[in-house]
């Protein structure tokens, strides 16, 4: 990868002036990823915050060609674009190298768009799919998704006399993609920009499908101050809530391993977010313990996978 200073001086591919919230993780992630895209790209975006806020007609923040058609089909749409490219290139009607990338939120990826994503990667289209995971349907005002962590308040996993918020754990999306046996799967976080851009560059250059799951803090939905986005992403990684790892042709590599004494309790991270505030009232100690136990189990499993695979 080029030096960060050089990358930072490249022209912006998602310009300022878009209407995403202050502190939103999505445009930070998009800009880091697009800054290492090796050539002109076509970007497909699922319906969601990123799409509505960057393409308010007649304006667009995208310097590359961009297409949005619906919510559940960012992957299927980019397949069509990529196939058109292959067809026209084969016929000699295009001669430039181009890159294809889809962005979807967790709702558009873990839930409603999972089928289209699964089909697209199984067929082996040459594209990068990026999920910017903010842990809920934030665009419609904070409803639970398959990515919402256990214990989180959302408007459809509300807190009440009979409920402590979402009672289920998250879907392990990266592992679902690993199970598709595609060339490259990675998780990333915007606080570790070098790691994220390394992975994005690798993903772009990988022949065949590549998948990146990037944590994307949402100040509105997480009930956090807008200036804490990067710190929260960092602590998510340090607590092993969001491990950084990559799987290249089936080979696991963990990119950040906190020493046991540096691995922070997940409750410390949760305490900083309003969506978990109710869990810190008396009576929820067991819930917090269960959440920590789950994080620990998943981390142990990941360590074993790296060792064995």
């Amino acid at each position, binding site marked *: 990868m080029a030096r960060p200073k050089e990358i930072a001086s490249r022209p912006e591919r998602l310009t300022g002036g878009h209407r995403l919230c202050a502190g939103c993780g999505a445009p930070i992630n998009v800009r880091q990823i697009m800054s290492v895209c090796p050539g002109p790209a076509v970007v497909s975006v699922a319906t969601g915050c990123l*799409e509505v806020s960057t393409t308010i007609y007649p304006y667009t923040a995208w310097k590359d060609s961009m297409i949005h058609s619906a919510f559940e089909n960012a992957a299927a749409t980019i397949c069509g674009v990529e196939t058109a490219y292959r067809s026209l290139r084969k016929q000699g009607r295009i001669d430039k190298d181009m890159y294809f990338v889809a962005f979807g939120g967790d709702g558009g990826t873990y839930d409603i768009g999972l089928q*289209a994503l699964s089909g697209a990667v199984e*067929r082996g289209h040459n594209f990068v799919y990026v999920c910017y995971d903010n842990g809920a349907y934030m665009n419609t005002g904070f409803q639970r998704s398959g990515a919402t962590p256990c214990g989180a308040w959302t408007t459809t996993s509300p807190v009440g006399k009979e409920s402590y918020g979402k009672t289920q754990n998250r879907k392990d999306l990266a592992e679902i993609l690993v199970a598709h046996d595609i060339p490259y799967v990675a998780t990333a976080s915007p606080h570790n920009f070098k790691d994220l851009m390394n992975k994005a560059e690798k993903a772009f250059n990988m022949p065949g499908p590549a998948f990146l799951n990037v944590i994307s803090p949402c100040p509105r939905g997480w009930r956090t101050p807008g200036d804490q986005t990067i710190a929260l992403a960092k602590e998510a990684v340090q607590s092993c809530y969001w491990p950084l790892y990559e799987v290249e042709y089936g080979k696991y590599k963990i990119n950040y391993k906190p020493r046991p004494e540096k691995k922070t309790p997940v409750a410390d991270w949760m305490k900083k977010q309003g969506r978990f505030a109710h869990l810190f009232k008396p009576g929820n100690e067991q819930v917090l313990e269960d959440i920590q136990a789950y994080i620990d189990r998943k981390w142990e499993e990941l360590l074993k996978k790296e060792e064995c695979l």
Partner: protein
Amino acid sequence: MSRKAMTGNGAIAIALKQVEPDVMSAYPITPQTEIAQNYAQFVADGAVKTEYIAVESEHSAMSAAIGSAAAGARTITATSSQGFALMWEMLFIAASLRLPITMPVITRALSGPINIHCDHSDSMGGRDCGWVQLYGEDAQEGYDNAIQAFRIAEHMDVRLPVMTMIDGFIISGAIGPLDVLEDEQVKQFVGPYKAIHPLLDVDNPVTVGAFDSLGGWYFEHKVTQNMAMAKAMDVIGGVGREYGQLTGREYSHFKTHHIEDAEIVLVAIGSAAGNVKTMVDKLRDHDVKVGMMKVRTFRPFPAAQIAAALSGAKIIGVMDRSDSFGALGGPLFMEIRSAMFELGARPQIYNFIYGLGGRDIFPDDIEGAVRLLEKAAAGEKITQKRYYLNVREVSLDGQA
């Protein structure tokens, strides 16, 4: 030109092969499957340059078609029934993005109960999605419409997606004679593809499918779609005439038979038109003043031309192969009835719904309809407007 024996699906697959589009995305569904698999075989044999996407659903079939067409490639798909229903969301988006995708639809009943046989509830359910709709009677018309669809969709005045229907099984699976053009004739007729604002033009990047909020241009956008539909009316006619010069088979929005002096006119769409025509000829031998109209263009609906053609009739019987629950009648009935409203002296109009879920329609059923209309023509007061042909007696209490 050569004559071949072919199924309706086979005929359409050959038409698509002769056009040889850049991309096809397709998902198999009865009774369309033969098209999906025949085309996959053409690709496997290296007989076409087309890139084929064997998608995992019809929603993705249409989504990928949208991506491909927006990218700048001539793009096709094909579907039936539940597949049509599953891509319904995307049909509107394809039309609103003004992408000239073409899609043969092999019409089949919609569940439930699940039923794989022919009716028009799939395509008629999508009549307001912004696609041009052409209905064919037989394999030849399916073939001819599939070719003309490209010219209509890609015409610079139109730039709308076009779906061409043939009846599932009745036509799609039946073997009949087909006049096939030479590949070169088809290619020349269709011409090269010109993409507008393609995503793949790296020197001129575009944003497609931007967000339109309050205060935006959604309403005007919809109005321009309707303007394009109005333009399509002329373009369909022009393409149909030109196709006639090439093949001797001229196409317009509808065809009539013995309509000039007819008191009673039956209007049909799809394969049943052939049965109706046979019955008209038979009844003419018995001096019944009956004629018929076969509708080809359903969207845009040629209301003025149809009203003018039917203006001499006293009684009209409209035959629908789909119902519209709770409405006055089936979709074709409502269009025809509405079109006739502008006439000074309006004929009486009755609706005959038939063939749902592939139920057979027999000559006796059609004759029965005409006999009923004869009573109305003779001045008998008939209040019931909607009839079901060849249906068993049923009641809501479950007693057959």
